[in-house]
């Protein structure tokens, strides 16, 4: 059984004078027990897909199923078996941490005690603050509370819409550790993120942009499809280096990538490039071959 299945989903929003196609003929499926990532910037269509799958929004065209339940006909069943953490904090700000969790347990006809083992890991970090109002929590704690509330009825599938946006690298790492543990308990996870480095933590990913899927595969397979030698180039003057590399006639693409610039060439000519850089005044430039990452692949696909 597929955990999630979308076929030719289209969603258009009408504005005053124009309209925006947020989801443009999207099809994909998620296997049970998988961590599946929708990776893309704002405006890629990630949130609309989440809202369609959680039965909060109707698609214009196409159909979608969650554990064989149709998102239109069987919306009631779906709401019982999924957990949803929206991108925007949507808990009750004027209820305390504990009251929020208790509330979500109650509307799903269960209790905190009954499913405590599932949330214990996350919730115990919140327990010292359980009498604090949710509105007074910091970003990271709100995120943990929201995840606890999405889990308290023991859903079969978790929908997490940008759970780590705006979160610092340490908390992001911790959050992904939690997701890995939930996967071990058999929960299917559909998660979206604008952070390309999180892609490799998913079993499979869809790279999205402007309502369309550019590619779907395992992170390894996507990296293998890059199909070009990628070089990391470094010198003492990185800003000048970027402009010089972009002016090199055999450069295909060149982007700043932290401490190095990532470069692809129209043809293999590293010796010529070395000479060119030396002539341009980069005395200690280094050129090293490296494995592309998801972000390299994303940018390559964007240019197609």
């Amino acid at each position, binding site marked *: 059984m597929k955990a999630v299945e979308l076929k030719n989903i289209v969603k258009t929003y009408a504005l005053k004078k*124009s309209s925006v196609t947020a989801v443009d003929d999207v099809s994909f499926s998620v296997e049970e027990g998988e961590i599946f990532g929708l990776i893309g910037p704002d405006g890629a269509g990630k949130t609309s897909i989440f809202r369609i799958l959680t039965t909060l929004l109707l698609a214009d065209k196409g159909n979608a199923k969650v554990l064989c339940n149709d998102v239109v006909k069987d919306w009631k069943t779906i709401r019982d078996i999924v957990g949803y953490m929206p991108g925007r904090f949507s808990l009750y700000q004027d209820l305390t941490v504990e009251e929020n969790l208790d509330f979500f347990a109650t509307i799903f006809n269960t209790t905190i005690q009954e499913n405590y083992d599932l949330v214990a890991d996350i919730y115990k970090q919140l327990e010292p603050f359980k009498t604090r109002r949710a509105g007074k929590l910091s970003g990271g704690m709100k995120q943990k509370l929201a995840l606890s509330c999405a889990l308290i009825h023991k859903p079969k599938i978790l929908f997490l819409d940008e759970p780590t946006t705006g979160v610092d690298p340490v*908390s992001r790492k911790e959050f992904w550790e939690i997701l890995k543990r939930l996967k071990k308990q058999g929960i299917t996870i559909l998660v979206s993120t604008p952070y390309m480095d999180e892609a490799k933590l998913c079993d499979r990913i869809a790279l999205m942009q402007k309502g369309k899927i550019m590619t779907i595969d395992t992170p390894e397979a996507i990296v293998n499809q890059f199909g070009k030698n990628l070089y990391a180039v470094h010198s003492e003057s990185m800003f000048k280096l970027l402009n010089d590399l972009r002016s090199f006639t055999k450069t295909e693409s060149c*982007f700043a990538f932290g401490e190095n610039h990532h470069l692809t060439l129209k043809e293999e000519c590293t010796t010529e490039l070395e000479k060119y850089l030396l002539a341009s005044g980069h005395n200690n430039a280094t050129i090293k071959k490296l494995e592309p990452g998801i972000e390299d692949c994303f940018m390559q696909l964007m240019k197609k």
Partner: protein
Amino acid sequence: MTQKEIVIKTNKLTKKFGDFIAANEITFEVYKGEIFGFLGANGAGKTTAMKMLIGISKPSYGYAQIAGYDVYKETELIKKNIGYMSQKFSLYEDLTIKENIHLFGGIYGLSEEQIKTKREALIDKLDLHSQADKLVASLPLGWKQKLAFSIAIVHKPKIIFLDEPTGGVDPITRRQFWDMIYEAAANGITVFVTTHYMDEAEYCNRVSIMVDGVIQAIDSPDGLKRKYNAQSMEEVFLMLARGAKRGE
């Protein structure tokens, strides 16, 4: 940066909320034309510190001078000499691109004549002619952020404060945004920027890392990597931020 003109200078700058010390005796300097990365985990005290620096939150004690002005007595002069842009708020969505430029130009004290010249130049540079009379709401996020940045420096401020300017932006636009940052710095505008992207930390001339309200480390990215024997800024950040005691 042959002569190091100081544009931000703080000494034991502190902000307390009751018993909680959000920013604890922060002391540092930022030089003219520098790209300075202000890093820290959520809850480390970055926003609190930034609010004091831009003159909208009064320090509990300590001292700071921004563009030569005192953070206690000359907050209005500070605001005139800086630009500010954040991911959360940048432009008015229900005004057109032209109207936004006009509004902010006016707020920053430019004359009608200056605004007109600046507006044309800015629309030219960003190649937004066909969009100039459209609502900002209709622009893709990446364009909004580029426009917001251009508007935030329309009055040629001494310092531009950028609070997570590239969150949620696609990878190509994110890099184009950094091209604009480099250009502003090359024109002598000091750039003070916060980010959660550690690759962007590498683009800064110097970075500071805040942990539990204190500046734990401050140096060039290369200097920090050497000191902590790390391969990347991400490693340095994780090493320092993992030592944090206070939850957010």
